C-alpha cells in the first residue's frame, strides 16, 4: 500500500481555489519543487497559509496562482529584501492579504488540530492587525478579560519537505521542525516530498523521532533537492545565486517560464522507489 507517487501526480492532487500550506520557514526546508510544479500545472486562486514565507510564495504569486495570502511575514531576508511578485500582486489588488502574526497563524492551525472553531491567542491588543483581518474577541468567562480568537485555519493540503520518509508516509525531520508537525495535524490532507525514502524499520528503530505518522499522510514524493534553492539541513545550503537569478527574472512571464523549465529536470528526476539503507 505504497503512497509513493510522482511530483506531477502529487501536484495534480491540488485543485484550483484550495487552501494550501507549504511547510518550512523562509528559505529553510521549503517545498520549493512542489511550488514550481503547481506553477507549471497552472494552478489558480490558491489560498496560501504560512508563518514566514519567501521564494515559494513569491514564485506562486509570480505565476498568478495565488488569490489570498494569510501569513506573518513574506519576504526574503536582508540579502534579497522584499518579495517583488507578492508585493506587486498585493499592491495591484490582485492578491488579498489576511494580515497575521506568525503566532496567530499557529493559533488558527491549532484550532483546526484541536477540533475547535477558533483558538484564543495572547497579545494583539496594541496592533491594528486584528481589526484589519477581522479577528474578533471573546470574553474569558473566568476573568472577564477579552482575548482575541483566531478562526480555524484548515488547509486542504499541507505540503512538507522532509529529509526522511517511508512509502507508508512516516516522516522524520532533522533540525528545526518549524510548524510542520502542527501543519500535518491541522490539514485535511498531507503530501510529503522527501530527500530520501527509507524502509519503515528506520522509523521503528527510533519511533520517538517520527514527526509525522504515516496514517496522517496521503502521498509521498521522492524528491532529492526538493527544497532548493532554499536550504535543507544538513544536506545543502541556500543557493544564493539561484535565488538572485530568480529575483532578477521575476519581472516577466517569459523569465518565469524559463525559471520553471530550468528546474524541471531536477524536479522530476525522482528515482522512483529507490530505498536508502
Amino acid at each position, binding site marked *: 500500500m505504497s503512497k509513493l507517487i510522482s511530483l506531477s501526480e502529487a501536484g495534480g492532487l491540488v485543485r484550483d481555489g484550495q487552501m494550501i500550506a507549504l511547510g518550512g520557514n523562509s528559505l529553510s526546508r521549503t517545498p520549493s519543487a512542489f511550488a514550481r510544479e503547481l506553477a507549471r500545472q497552472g494552478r489558480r486562486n490558491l489560498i496560501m497559509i504560512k508563518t514566514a514565507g519567501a521564494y515559494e510564495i513569491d514564485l506562486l504569486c509570480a505565476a498568478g496562482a495565488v488569490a489570498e495570502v494569510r501569513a506573518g511575514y513574506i519576504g526574503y531576508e536582508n540579502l534579497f529584501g522584499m518579495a517583488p511578485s507578492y508585493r506587486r500582486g498585493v499592491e495591484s489588488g490582485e492578491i488579498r492579504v489576511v494580515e497575521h502574526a506568525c503566532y496567530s497563524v499557529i493559533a488558527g492551525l491549532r484550532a483546526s488540530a484541536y477540533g475547535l472553531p477558533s483558538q484564543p491567542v495572547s497579545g494583539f491588543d496594541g496592533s491594528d492587525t486584528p481589526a484589519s483581518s477581522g479577528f474578533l474577541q471573546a470574553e474569558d468567562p473566568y476573568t472577564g478579560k477579552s482575548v482575541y480568537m483566531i478562526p480555524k485555519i484548515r488547509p486542504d493540503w499541507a505540503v512538507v519537505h522532509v529529509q526522511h520518509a517511508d512509502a507508508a508516509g512516516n516522516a522524520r525531520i532533522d*533540525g528545526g521542525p518549524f510548524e510542520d508537525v502542527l501543519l500535518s495535524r491541522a490539514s485535511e490532507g498531507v503530501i510529503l516530498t522527501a530527500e530520501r525514502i527509507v524502509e519503515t524499520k528506520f522509523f521503528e528503530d527510533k519511533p520517538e523521532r517520527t514527526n509525522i505518522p504515516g496514517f496522517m499522510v496521503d502521498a509521498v514524493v521522492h524528491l532529492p533537492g526538493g527544497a532548493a534553492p532554499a536550504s535543507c539541513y544538513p544536506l545543502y545550503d541556500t543557493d544564493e545565486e539561484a535565488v538572485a537569478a530568480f529575483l532578477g527574472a521575476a519581472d516577466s512571464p517569459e523569465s518565469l517560464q524559463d525559471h520553471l523549465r530550468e528546474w524541471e529536470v531536477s524536479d522530476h528526476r525522482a528515482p522512483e522507489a529507490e530505498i536508502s539503507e
Partner: protein
Amino acid sequence: MTLKTESEIQAARDAADQMAVCLARELREGERVFHGVNSPLPMVAIFLAKKLHAPGSVLIEVAGSVDPRPERLPFSTNDPALCQGAAAIFSNADAYDLFARGGVDLMYLGGAQIDKAGRVNMSYIGEPSAPKVRLPGGGGGSVIMEQARRIVIWRVVHDRRTFVEKVDFVTQSGNLARVVTPLAVMEMRDEGLELGSVHPGVSVEEVAGRTGFPLDLGAEIPVTIPPTGDELSALAEIDPEGVRYSEFAALRRVER
C-alpha cells in the same frame, strides 16, 4: 550599482560596529533572548554579549535551536547552520508560547516605520486597503512586542521615512525600551521616544533633522560609548565574515 567611496564604506562599517555593540549591551547576564528571521545585527550582538558580559544568557532563535554554538555565524539568521551545538531544538510554536507566558526577557525587532509613541509598522506604506507598498509583515512581532519583557528595535537607516509622526499601520507596539540606529540610541520614556545618546561624530541637530517627530533637545544629550577594544576584538573573533555588515546597502555582499 554605483561604486562606494572608501570613506562611505568605512563609515558604514563603523556604524555597523557601533550598532552591534549597542545592541549587545542591551542583553543582561542570565536573560532569555530571542531573534527572528532577517536579524543579522541582533544575532551578532547576542553572540557578542554571550562572549563578553552575558555568558549565561539563553538564546532561542527562529531556526529552532536553544543556545546554539555555531562554528560560524550564517548570513541568514534562519539558517539551520545556526543550530550547531544546540542541546535542544524547538518548534517555532514552542518559542512563541514561551513569549506568550512571559518567559522571554529581550527581543530585538525591526521596523519600517516607527513613531513617537513607539508604534511600529511592518505591514503597509499608505492606505492598508490600497497600499503604496506592501511590506513583509510583522512576523512574530505583532504579538511578541506585547509579550517580551523588553523590546529593542534596530534599524540601519535613520531618516524621516522611518521615524514618522504617525505610522500608517500599527503592526505592533508595547514594551519598547530602545531604538538603535546608525546615528543614535533612542529611549522610550513617558513622553515617547527621545534621544538617549548620539554616536560619536554625530550631531544632535543631524539626528533631529532626520527624525520625523519632535525630540526634546533641552537637556544635555550624551555621546554613545564607542566600541571598546575588547568589544571590537570580540566582534572580529565571532563574526570574521562580517555578517553584521550585510544589512548596509553600502556593504552588501550579494549585489542585485
